[in-house]
């Protein structure tokens, strides 16, 4: 069977062939010239690709070494960013892995631009505002609402500024994770026929199941209707799309121009400007990992990554006039959202053609 040489070659490259398979491969290579050629080429390319892709996850390697060093006080810090850059001319995929940042365990490094913190502002229906922070357990929000919500019909609003994040539970038991620069409005009691909320920015929702009271999300001019499900919606005014990503259950997204019913693993993109719909299968982790404290990008233009970083760290990121083209670079990568911005930027700079000029809270990207 023709695929056999491919299977064996790939198994060999992973170093996981059994003795029997290795003998089978050996016999094949001895008797079949074509198989021999294919195998050698695959093995060469495997080495080449792995060498190009290395380094990866040095942090773990360092941890292993560190753990076995006697009397060592050095601590590695979790910081991993894999980024892939591609030229604007050919739509290419590129991946870089960033080496971990090291520092002495004793003196913590100055955190000039720290990551987003748990903070939000709750505005009650009567206009009163309450600052929410780590002091208030996000889960106690419904208690807070129950005690303080006035008997007015106006909705409550929770706003997370740039450089913030917040997770809490709505009065109906649905759980909400709000990303930086995002807002949700909701009735203080979900007593109506529908549970209707409005979202600006990005949120991940775990909607409590209640078939009698559909959960409706208005976001960026589109409307998502759900029964009980987990999904992510991103509707930043400065981004042209409303992006709905379904993890579990089923949702219907309606907007001028059409509707889409999503199955788990599917995503709808609605272009606000031309009202075009697109539904596609995606790696949901890419769109939901932010909830778990991870930035995950795949083939994402640098311009969009800059937007995300800007919101999370509450900074301005712009491209130098001669480096506008870098905005089209496609990156693929993963990094800890708890890293300082400088850590991320310096590692990107080390491994790409990009350089970052940090002045206060303004960052200019230029090419090296």
């Amino acid at each position, binding site marked *: 069977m023709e695929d056999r040489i491919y299977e064996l070659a*790939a198994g060999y490259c992973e170093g996981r062939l059994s003795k029997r398979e290795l003998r089978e491969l050996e016999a094949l290579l001895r008797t079949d010239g074509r198989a021999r050629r294919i195998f050698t080429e695959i093995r060469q390319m495997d080495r080449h690709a792995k060498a190009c892709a290395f380094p990866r996850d040095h942090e773990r390697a360092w941890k292993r070494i560190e753990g076995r060093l006697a009397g060592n006080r050095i601590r590695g810090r979790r910081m991993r960013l894999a980024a892939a850059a591609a030229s604007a001319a050919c739509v290419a995929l590129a991946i870089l892995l960033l080496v971990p940042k090291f520092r002495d365990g004793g003196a913590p490094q100055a955190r000039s631009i720290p990551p987003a913190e748990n903070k939000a502002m709750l505005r009650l229906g009567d206009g009163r505002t309450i600052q929410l922070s780590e002091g208030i357990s996000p889960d106690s929000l419904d208690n807070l609402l129950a005690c303080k919500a006035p008997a007015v019909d106006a909705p409550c609003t929770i706003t997370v500024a740039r450089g913030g994040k917040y997770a809490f539970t709505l009065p109906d038991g649905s759980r909400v994770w709000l990303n930086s620069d995002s807002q949700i409005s909701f009735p203080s009691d979900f007593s109506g026929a529908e549970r209707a909320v409005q979202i600006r920015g990005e949120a991940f929702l775990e909607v409590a199941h209640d078939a009698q009271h559909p959960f409706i999300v208005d976001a960026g001019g589109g409307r998502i209707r759900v029964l009980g499900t987990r999904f992510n919606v991103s509707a930043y005014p400065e981004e042209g799309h409303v992006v709905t990503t379904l993890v579990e259950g089923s949702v219907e997204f309606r907007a001028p121009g059409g509707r889409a019913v999503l199955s788990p693993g599917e995503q709808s993109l609605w272009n606000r400007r031309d009202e075009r719909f697109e539904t596609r299968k995606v790696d949901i982790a890419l769109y939901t990992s932010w909830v778990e404290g991870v930035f995950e990008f795949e083939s994402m233009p640098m311009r969009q990554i800059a937007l995300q970083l800007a919101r999370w760290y509450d900074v301005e990121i712009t491209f130098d006039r001669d480096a506008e083209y870098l905005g089209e670079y496609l990156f693929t990568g993963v990094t800890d959202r708890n890293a300082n911005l400088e850590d991320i930027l310096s590692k990107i700079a080390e491994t790409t053609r990009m350089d970052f000029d940090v002045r206060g809270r303004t960052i200019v990207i230029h090419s090296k």
Partner: protein
Amino acid sequence: MGNALNDKDREISVLLGTGDPACMRVIFEAWYRPMCLCAMRYLPSVQDAEDVVQSVLLSFWNNRRGREFTGSVRAYLFAAVVKSSLKALRNKAGRYFVDLEMQLAENSDPAADENAGIYETMRLRLEACIAGLPGNQRMALVYIVFRSMPYRDVAREMGVSVNTVKTHYARALARLREIMDIAPEHP
């Protein structure tokens, strides 16, 4: 470049003499990657290569700390990596074709390991070419090569069998080689 390395050697030698564990950090940051690339010339599995490098680093620290090092730390470490890699390859004779691997290793350019720029250029080219692969092949390759995922996990991620992953990966490599038009081993 040469001076920088000499400075690095001196810095490490002093730290080593005082038994300062920061020494290992300096070595790790300076040479971990090139040392791994060097080991990867002999060992097909990246994990095996990293194991070798880590053992070399640890035994260097355990045997040499407390005394200043005379000579080039860098040269010493790289020679140790080559020696250990060959030994590891022979120990794994049941999994690999030792002769073939040694032949491939000898045909590749050791200087490339220490010249990040070479890999940088090759990587950009590789990445550009990856974009041209069929979806399944590209996905398998990205997971395996760039995310270092075991085939088993890739299979789960892609919802296909392990054998299918192997076929995707191997075909991706064969196709890539064609697209990239690579001469036998790195030029």
